[in-house]
């Protein structure tokens, strides 16, 4: 069951970052300090395990802002359960991440 999944510290940190509002991959990189070679593969594994789900921004919205559309991530219900369990295991994660920056998704 996903709730029983034992996440690594890195995966739990990424999950915490996404739940904190850092929904883009580069944003997770910046807030966690992890390299892209760790963050993006980890997010793929988390999506494969059903803990997060990816979505594409609306193309019209991105075009209006003169930028390319990005893929953003949101926690699933199973991801929330797993994160709650992981935070008990890694209590410092909550203190490591600052307050979430508000980004229009």
């Amino acid at each position, binding site marked *: 069951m996903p709730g029983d999944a034992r996440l690594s510290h890195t995966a739990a940190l990424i999950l915490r970052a996404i739940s904190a509002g850092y929904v883009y991959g580069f944003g997770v990189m910046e807030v966690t300090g992890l*390299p892209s070679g760790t963050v993006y593969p980890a997010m793929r594994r988390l999506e494969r395990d059903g803990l997060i789900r990816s979505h594409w921004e609306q193309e019209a919205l991105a075009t209006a802002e003169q930028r390319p559309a990005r893929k953003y991530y949101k926690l699933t219900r199973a991801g929330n359960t797993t994160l709650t369990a992981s935070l008990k295991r890694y209590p410092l994660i909550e203190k490591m991440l600052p307050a979430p920056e508000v980004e229009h998704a």
Partner: protein
Amino acid sequence: MTRALHSVRTLPWRAFLRCIALLLERSFRAEWIREWQAELWHAERSLGSKGLSLFEVQAELARFTRGALCDAALIRWQVFRSHAFRLNADSERHATALASPAACLGWLLLGCLAFASVAVLVPGARQALLPARNRGAQATVRISRDGLAGSGSPTIRLDQYRQWQAQARNLFAAIAFYRAEQKRVHFAAHRSADLSLLIGTGSLSEVIPLALERGSLAAQATDTRAALVLSDAAWRRYFRRDPQIVGSEARIGEQRVRIAAIASLQPSSGQPGQTMPPPDAWLLETDAQIEQWPRSTHGFVVATVRPAVAASLPAERWHMTVPQPTGDEEFECVTVADHFLRTIVVFLFTAILALLALPATTSLRLGEYGSAYAGHHSGKRMRRWLFLGAKFSLALALIFFITLDLDCLLTRMHGGAAGLFSFPACLAAFRWILRDQRQRCPVCLRLLRNPARVGQPSRVFLAWNGTEMMCADGHGLLHVPELPTSWFSTQRWLSLDSSWNGLFHPTGLAPSVNP
């Protein structure tokens, strides 16, 4: 302007991402490139807004795009694992396809039917499968001295042929005499070739079915020259299918002959001595020319038996007794289209050879199953032996039809190597049958599953080590020794009584799936 500047700064990294994307399957590539290029764009904008120098931005972008390589490698690995899992699942499915005895026999039967269907479609094989009496209204026989039918040598004298020609009209609708020789034939335009000839009487074309592709033999009755009928193969090989050759004159030594026709041999007709290949040409001499042959000339005789007589003949082979003043002479008559019998005999011979060679390649023991049938109906034991017999029968039938198909196809191409196929095929089939029988539960005849290594090889003299397999329905366990010893020489069945039923799934153990 800003966008153009972004494009220029990220150009090399976008190209790098496209190169990395080649690692991915085509279906993932477009979305992956779109995702990473979008992230690259925002990374460059974020880094550029931090007041870093151009070089520092580029260095950061290099570090960023390096992660794309890890991401692509992960996706590639996940795809590979999913394919490997699918292959494993397929092999698991294939293994379970033969699990039940009905499925095993069903597949063998399906193979037999498939190759039997091919045999019906291949003309030579179809004719070989028909009983001899149904092969056309007339039966063509080859007459040889008794006991010399398979020798391949000419055994009939010319005077004997003339005697039958005069006296056996009630028996034979047509009879022909010929001999096989290699002669140099000189054609027009100073062309010549060494051809294998069947030189015989004019009635030869009536007895041996020649399919005339060009020309005809109608003029032979009035022409004083012998008629040369070239085979299709020789016409192609020596004359490149030149149509002008038909009707022209050729010379064999001092004898002038007329090239009357081009013919191909029907696949159902046979030649004396099965090892003789079809000839390059047939030379049909006139009666006057035949009269000049010495009486003691030895050759072959083929005849067409009258339909009324053919129906009463015993089999493909029968004996003919010819009363002579000096005593009766025995002759053997063999149906020319005796292909089926030949194939059967060769196949059975190779199957027996394979059976004799089987003990040299594998153990014949099926194991110790003394306790297997305790508490079960006595018919279970018989059912196991019947299953073994059915596998042998179906396997032999399958290999026979494959051999027949190959024999007819390769004979048409003058290969004739199909007989070499049946021995290794029979040997491999027998080995598989024994191996399959050993791996089945003696009670339900399903394939045993979940092989588990038991014991340590280093303790082979102190304890038992080998492989344990179980019946999915809980009938028992099979212990196969790794090394045969005097106290455990062959596999042994351990029956489980009904108290074990609760541990086994009623429909068998479900395969474990770990993606």
